[in-house]
């Protein structure tokens, strides 16, 4: 049933693509560049975040005023703050689109579980970064978020008390909280780049940036939103009173809305289930081509005699499944005799797509159950009939 649902979702996704391709040329379809858009927004966030970091004071007394100082007095401060705020929204929207698109179009198959797992990590940490960013402003919303988080953590069985004091940093809410959160906000943003390295490491030529048109459009959209709806703080936090209502940001603060109807324990269990299921997605469906009902051409084989070590397959393999090693012995054909390198296919990463076969001009790569001679036979047959 799940696979049938997935097939239907794939159909809808592709129909949406076709519709968008009618409007834009297909190499400008923004849905093909969700990952690149997320990276663009992350870069904008880091740059504007550095600016805000220079003026921000992480203490209960000064945090709110320093944010107001950035907004009111620092040249372009209100713009940079707005950029930071709306780029965060764009970042979250882009990675959610990226997540769902790659889920619905089966892009977690075969050796692509590593990008999937690291992507889940990126999604999780981005969510946390968003919440911690809301706390740093230290208005009534921040105060409410802190108390809700502490309450939720404290409600966990057995370890609840420890979690709560770990989060707050002392017995009660103290002046240590904001420096801790500032470090977690900036430090985890750095950590995102380690996760991004993991996200890209098995991928040759990742599409890191969107087309220039979309870069300009996204930056323009952020600036437009900044101008139309400048980012503002709630009233300043007052430790003596607990605010009654939470000003909700539906992208980042959705779990806190859930606290209204769910008990903290149920919410935490739900979060764990969602995250674990997200990590399980690439392993849920059968992976063998036979079980998937697709062609089983076998892992690409290097033909020793013909390989010239030219590295073309190495550059073109989309999954980094081909590595070049020093050649153990010369090849047989004239072009292969002087080779210094030799291509090796890592079977665990090969998805049997045959892109290396198309890349090789020396006929040194073949898919064992779909040989060049098979194709040529089919071509001759087609020309004869």
């Amino acid at each position: 049933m799940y696979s049938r649902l997935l097939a239907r979702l794939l159909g809808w996704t592709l129909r949406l693509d076709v519709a968008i391709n009618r409007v834009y040329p297909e190499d400008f379809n923004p849905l093909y560049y969700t990952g690149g858009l997320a990276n663009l927004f992350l870069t904008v966030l880091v740059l504007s975040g550095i600016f805000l970091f220079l003026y921000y004071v992480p203490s209960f007394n000064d945090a709110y005023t320093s944010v107001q100082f950035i907004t009111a007095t620092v040249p372009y401060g209100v713009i940079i703050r707005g950029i930071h705020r709306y780029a965060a929204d764009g970042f979250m929207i882009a990675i959610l689109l990226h997540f769902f698109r790659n889920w619905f179009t089966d892009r977690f198959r075969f050796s692509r579980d590593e990008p999937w797992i690291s992507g889940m990590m990126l999604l999780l940490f981005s969510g946390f970064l968003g919440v911690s960013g809301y706390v740093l402003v230290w208005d009534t919303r921040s105060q409410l978020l802190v108390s809700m988080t502490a309450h939720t953590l404290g409600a966990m069985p057995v370890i609840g008390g420890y979690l709560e004091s770990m989060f707050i940093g002392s017995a009660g809410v103290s002046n240590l909280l904001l420096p801790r959160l500032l470090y977690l906000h900036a430090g985890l943003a750095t950590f995102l780049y380690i996760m991004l390295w993991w996200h890209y490491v098995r991928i040759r030529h990742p599409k890191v940036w969107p087309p220039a048109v979309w870069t300009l459009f996204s930056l323009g959209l952020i600036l437009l939103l900044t101008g139309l709806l400048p980012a503002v703080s709630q009233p300043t936090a007052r430790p003596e009173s607990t605010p009654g209502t939470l000003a909700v940001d539906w992208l980042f603060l959705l779990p806190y809305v859930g606290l209204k109807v769910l008990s903290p324990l149920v919410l935490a269990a739900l979060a764990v289930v969602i995250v674990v299921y997200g990590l399980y997605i690439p392993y849920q469906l059968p992976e063998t081509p036979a079980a998937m009902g697709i062609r089983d051409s076998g892992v690409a084989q290097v033909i020793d005699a013909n390989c010239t070590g030219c590295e073309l397959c190495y550059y073109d393999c989309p999954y980094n499944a081909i590595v070049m090693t020093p050649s153990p012995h010369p090849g047989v054909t004239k072009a292969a005799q002087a080779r210094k390198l030799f291509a090796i296919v890592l079977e665990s990463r090969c998805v049997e797509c045959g892109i290396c076969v198309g890349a090789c001009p020396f006929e040194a790569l073949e898919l064992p159950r779909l040989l060049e001679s098979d194709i040529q036979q089919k071509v001759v047959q087609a020309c004869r009939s």
Partner: protein
Amino acid sequence: MPELTAPRIVGFLCDFAVDASALTAPDGTMREAPNVTLIKVPCSGFVRPTWLEFALRNGAAGAFVCGCPLGDCFNRLGNNLIGDRVTQLRRRFERQKIHPDRIAAIYFGLHDQAGFVASVKAFSEHVAGLPGPVVPAPRTAGGASVARAAGTAGAGGPAGRPAAGQQEITAPEGARPASAGARPAADAAPSQATDGTAGAPGA
């Protein structure tokens, strides 16, 4: 079997691109364009450009590759790569006097059958309108396609042409004995030199 008036066309179709199961007969020919035969491949990037040339040299009038829409390849890069390779092959075809429009890369997603059929039909009609033989006659020694300086071909007019060609062919032949004579001497000199240097440490 009815006589085919449309040109014979071979198409390589990616498994993940347009779903052609409803469009093709069991032998791979398309129902709506029986002159087109589709060959399924695991990814459009799997296609070696030489197979397109192979198809043309074996009687096809045109050959194309169909992949997923650019940017949406299941294997990430296959359609971009085959797009580049077809572009390179078109350039090579221009030098080989094969009309580059005889090959193409087209991109249609899983459910875009209508667009695919329309595009294939348009390609077929375009190929039918192309002039001349698919592949030029093979070169022969002394034929018109012997390399010569640009602009010399039309200099003497149609009547003067064979003589000019003759002259150009005889001239290298006349020069060959001289160069053949000079070659061993030139080869001998370095080998003597190497003998000398090789012998020097021993002596």
